[in-house]
């Protein structure tokens, strides 16, 4: 099960990309912003795509009463996520090594994948909860209050995935390099599972 073990190790290591590259990216373009403002969401915090983007997004958001973009220390996720990802990388590599030397079954590979998928879905759920809170928890003294046609106050939750028009802004929310590396890595762990299964049958 040497080949499968190596694939498992490589797949798990690809998650390390999340420490270097953003997981998600939200871009906000508008007539006045031909160069869109943008935020890159990392597992340990949010950064502007350009240096002053966060400050400028906050500056615009104050008109509609949105809270400022949270600092890393203001959200538990930004300290928990790196630990979870780090732990999953270590676990994946360990399973890969043990698989390589034949100490564990290939089924562990799919086990890791299922655990990672559950964590991923939980992460996305949590992220969506935050977006909802961020876009909906508005200052009652906001300068500009927009009412929907149905009479409810307009909220400003950015889309979790895809494009949405919000007032004068075109908002696009998409996975970024870190996420793509994670998807490839996770796919490799499934590959490792099937390769491991094949190698097991041969042996």
């Amino acid at each position, binding site marked *: 099960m040497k080949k499968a073990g190596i694939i498992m190790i490589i797949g798990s290591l690809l998650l390390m990309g999340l420490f270097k590259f953003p997981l998600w990216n939200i871009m906000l373009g508008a007539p006045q912003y031909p*160069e869109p403002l943008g935020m890159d969401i990392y597992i340990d915090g949010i950064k502007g795509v350009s240096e*002053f983007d966060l400050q*400028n997004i906050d500056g615009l958001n104050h008109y509609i009463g949105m809270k400022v973009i949270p600092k890393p220390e203001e959200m538990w996720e930004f300290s928990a996520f790196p630990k979870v990802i780090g732990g999953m990388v270590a676990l994946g590599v360990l399973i890969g090594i043990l698989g390589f030397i034949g100490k564990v079954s290939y089924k562990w590979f799919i086990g890791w994948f299922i655990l990672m998928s559950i964590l991923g879905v939980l992460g996305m759920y949590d992220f969506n909860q935050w977006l909802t809170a961020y876009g909906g928890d508005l200052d009652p003294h906001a300068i500009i209050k927009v009412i929907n046609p149905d009479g409810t106050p307009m909220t400003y939750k950015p889309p979790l995935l895809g494009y949405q028009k919000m007032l004068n802004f075109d908002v696009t929310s998409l996975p970024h390099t870190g996420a793509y590396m994670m998807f490839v890595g996770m796919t490799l762990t499934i590959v490792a599972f099937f390769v491991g299964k094949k190698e097991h049958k041969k042996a």
Partner: protein
Amino acid sequence: MKSILKIMTLLFSASVLLSSCGNNNGKSSGNNSALNSSNAEKVYVAPGEYDEFYAFMSGGYSGNLTVYGLPSGRMFKEIPVFSQFPTTGYGYSEETKPMLNTSFGMVPWDDSHHPDISQTNGVLDGRWVFINGNNTPRIARISLKTFETEEIIEVPNSAGNHSSSFITENTEYVVAGTRFSVPVPQADLPINEYKGKFKGALSFISVDKETGRMGIKFQILMPGFNYDLSHPGRDKSHGWFFFTTYNTEEANSLLEVNASQNDKDFIAAINWKKIEEYVNNGGGTKMPANYAHNVYDEHTHTATSTMEKEVLTVNPADVPGAIYFLPTPKSPHGCDVTPTGEYIIGNGKLSADLTVHSFSKMLDAIENKKFDGDAYGIPILKYEDILAGVVKSGGLGPLHTEFDDKGNAYTTFFISSEVVKWKIGTWEVIDRKPTYYSVGHLMIPGGNSRKPFGKYVVAMNKITKDRYLPTGPELEHSAQLYDISGEKMELIYDFPTHGEPHYAAGIPADLIKGNSQKIYRLDENKHPYAITSPDQAKVTRNGNEVHISMAMIRSHFTPDNIEGVKVGDKVYFHITNHEQDFDVPHGFAMIGANNSELLIMPGQTKTLTWEPKQVGVWPFYCTDFCSALHQEMQGYVRVSPANSDIELSWSLDGE
């Protein structure tokens, strides 16, 4: 019926053909729709698209520098240089007042003439543009990163700083020559003792390679002629500088007649490398002087003015072999050097012809000591020995010549109002096109370098008359744009220019547009009264001076309610723009302020003073429509009687 139509069509096409061949009159060329539509395409820069070139045009009597795009002729900015500019507060704000300091005190205006862009190895490098103040002799350096004036140095012993501000091919020096000779040092002399006693100072101002910082390295005290224009040698003639002169008669009155008597004046050829070596070895005489050196620091956002007390002068007789006179007919005006550095062109303004001197022949004549006497000890070379050719132009009043990258030269003729294209080497005239009207300088981007970009020439005219919709007796000047990519020049556009552009300097946009700064960083703001966070806002009193450190961001001032100011106080508003977003300036205007407004860029701090004279509650507001809540961006200062004991207090939203 059909045949009548045919005939009419034929007649119509014939008229089109005729007007495209023979008719160069701008007024009636409007009939020529086919030609005009292709010209329209050449100058059309679609909405959102960029121009191919920047053109920096001197403002002449506006004292400033304007920035245009070519080929569109659109004006992008007016950069305040030598003149107060109430739009931004330049020359009014406490930070920029020192920029206009001189040995005569504050001189809030000048006459800006000849911009020149910095070069490396004879090629435009796009770091700075230099420009001269003609009236109260000064040279300014403008950053092409911030597009702001960074430095102004006064030139002592000079008067009518006209043969300026031309730079050598590695920006070693920016050179400033005097048009009017004066007593050096200044003295109480009868004016008719001009001859022999007055001197013409030619100043070589060194430019620091990294910072651009200027300093007068040496001044050559030349005979009392008028030094009209100049250009550096380049490539093979690098190390030399050439100045046209007039009034070699040394007349001191009615120069119109008395300075036009000699058939030939001179082009002064100066081997500045030789003189540089002389002064580097301790040569020259230190002379007491008094001139201002003003430097703007982009981190403190503040200018400082220092009075320099000494200048190093060089007497030409002390450096034999460094200076020669090249006889040049008819009071030459422009002095232009071809991109190869071989030919020096004297534009004899009272003549029909251009005189072209050869640099190699000049060196040869010098080596063989073929002199035709001397003037004040400076050898005069023989006209015939150094002459490369004469351009028999057929025009009248040649003023200036620029060059393309295909071996052609383009000369303006003021009197006959035209641009003439001729071939370097054969001296034959290739083409001529009228200008509207009475053209002065012309400009080809890079035309004053080893590497011109010969796609367009801009003609800058002195007389506008009927070119545009009339605006009363006073008109802006007019410029024409010619396509010079083909054998014949084509007039493709005509646009008004602000002030009175004398010369201009053009550069491909790609060389500088990427360096243009978007904001000033707040975290690099070193202004002593800057505040980097609104909670640092404060108001302090020092005698009758009140200092307000204020922040501005969309869409409020911090603080916006200030009390405790009294009649007779001098109030300093030190205002920092806390935006860090491109193109979000805020303005500041105070009712009754006797100076100007302030326009403050993101991250910048500026200071306006206000001396309240009346008791009351007086508003201030943002003048730049910054945001949807711009109209709400305002505040109040309560002014109490001089004897009031109300303490200073300040707040925003009651806090």
